């Protein structure tokens, strides 16, 4: 399995500062987006600390091949050990941000969303707190691998409100769960088996406020590489007024087997093999 990834963050047109933060760590297969909140730069602090700490503790546990009982908080038996590394990293980051906010007056009330994605050879693991989202594009369909922790999303889940009503509801940005506002947090987590050519998008609400799921699907299918996709998303939100910070991380999975196939196979495998043989003969001849 080959992973290609790219990330971008943009302050937008209305805000004075960027409170979003992200990381793309291909060596771990770990990708994180955080959208901070809280005045006096506290939002920036919260999102940066969350991203750094999640990476740091996750790396440590993976390298030590830590056992479940060594992790932070109770192990979740419904997910793999890697899923538990991810959950614990988020819980630990939550505790640190929460305690910083308690101790320092200037950080009072700070918090952040986090959306995290982990790619292993056998799993795609998605965990989140707040309203930053994780999407998967597979076989021409788009699917969310995260759950929004907002009043409005809970209403939709209960069937009280439709998706359409939700997108224009006045309380759509009110979170019911975030990282840093309580001593403990329980992230949402999902695990699925990876498949060839899966494309994954992690983003802050700066994107999803202005670009619909359908548009995200179409734009994701339209491009060849993740960097290009990130740039296109930012261009789109800027065109639409970009009232918030926007952050996007794109992760494209491709099958190793496909990549190692002779590029000449496009003109037919037998022909490609034929040419390959001729090249070998020429090489021999030259040496």
């Amino acid at each position: 399995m080959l992973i290609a990834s790219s990330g971008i963050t943009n302050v937008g047109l209305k805000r004075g500062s960027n409170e979003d933060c992200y990381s793309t760590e291909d060596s771990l297969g770990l990708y994180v987006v955080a959208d901070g909140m809280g005045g006096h730069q506290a939002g920036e602090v919260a999102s940066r600390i969350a991203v750094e700490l999640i990476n740091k503790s996750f790396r440590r546990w993976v390298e030590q091949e830590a056992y479940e009982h060594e992790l932070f908080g109770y192990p979740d038996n419904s997910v793999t050990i890697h899923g538990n590394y991810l959950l614990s990293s988020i819980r630990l980051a939550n505790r640190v941000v929460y305690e910083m906010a308690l101790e320092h007056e200037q950080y009072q009330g700070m918090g952040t969303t986090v959306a995290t994605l982990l790619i292993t050879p056998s799993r795609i693991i998605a965990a989140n707190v707040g309203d930053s989202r994780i999407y998967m594009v597979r076989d021409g369909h788009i699917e969310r691998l995260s759950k929004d922790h907002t009043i409005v999303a809970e209403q939709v889940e209960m069937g009280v409100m439709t998706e359409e009503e939700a997108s224009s509801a006045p309380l759509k940005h009110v979170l019911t769960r975030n990282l840093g506002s309580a001593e403990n947090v329980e992230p949402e987590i999902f695990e699925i088996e990876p498949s060839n050519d899966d494309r994954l998008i992690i983003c802050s609400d700066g994107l999803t406020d202005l670009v619909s799921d359908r548009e995200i699907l179409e734009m994701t299918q339209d491009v060849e590489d993740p960097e290009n996709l990130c740039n296109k998303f930012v261009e789109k939100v800027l065109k639409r007024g970009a009232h918030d910070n926007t952050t996007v991380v794109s992760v494209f999975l491709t099958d190793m087997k496909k990549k190692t196939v002779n590029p000449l196979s496009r003109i037919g495998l037998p022909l490609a093999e034929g040419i390959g043989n001729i090249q070998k003969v020429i090489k021999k001849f030259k040496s």
Partner: protein
Amino acid sequence: MPRLILTFNKQVIKEYPFLKDSITIGRNDDNGIIIDNLAVSSYHAKIDKVGSDYIVTDLQSTNGTFVNDQKVVSHKLSHGDNIIVGKHVILFVAAEKGTEAEATDQKEKLDKTMMLDTAKQKELLAKQQVTPKVPKPLEKIGVLSFINGSELGEIELKKKLTRIGKGDASEIKLSGMFMGSTAATISKRPSGYTITFAGGKTKLKVNGEVVKDSVALKDFDTIELGSHRFQFYQKEVKPD
């Protein structure tokens, strides 16, 4: 036109446009905003339009009326004020009038992501000695029920991802000459349970239809993998 948004336990229940000059809040049927809860008095409070202002008045209710964290008898409302009546919170959303700048300012406030401060609310409720009886929604868990006399019986899908097949890595082991090492996977996703064909020469069928990639599972779908047949359904379990 201003609006009143009635919420309970962080859930929006209903939105009321402020159409008349006065609206009453209470447990009785003839109130403008009816809240059927014992913590709320028959006629608990009212809101009046006075000129361009809106005033909330407590109607000598048993448990009192709060605006944000202050107990009030009468209070001029501003945009974003929380009127707390028993265990319910009514958000006052002012009309988008006045200067352009004011209107945008209000909109931007709502655009900004914020965290609901429940601690203060809890504190207020504790003072009122009202025991909340909020039923926690039951979690649903998927179950596979084997149909044709298999000794497997019923299997609860406790993992977020369950693999079915012949191989050792599969959580549910099924025999069969052409059964894939992992023949299919079932994952619990935000949208619900999904079954995915994973490999091998044994076909995966859901309700008789061959599945080559993924399909969402509904209650009482019949799944077939070779000679194995089982039914999917969800049952409610108490959260841990």
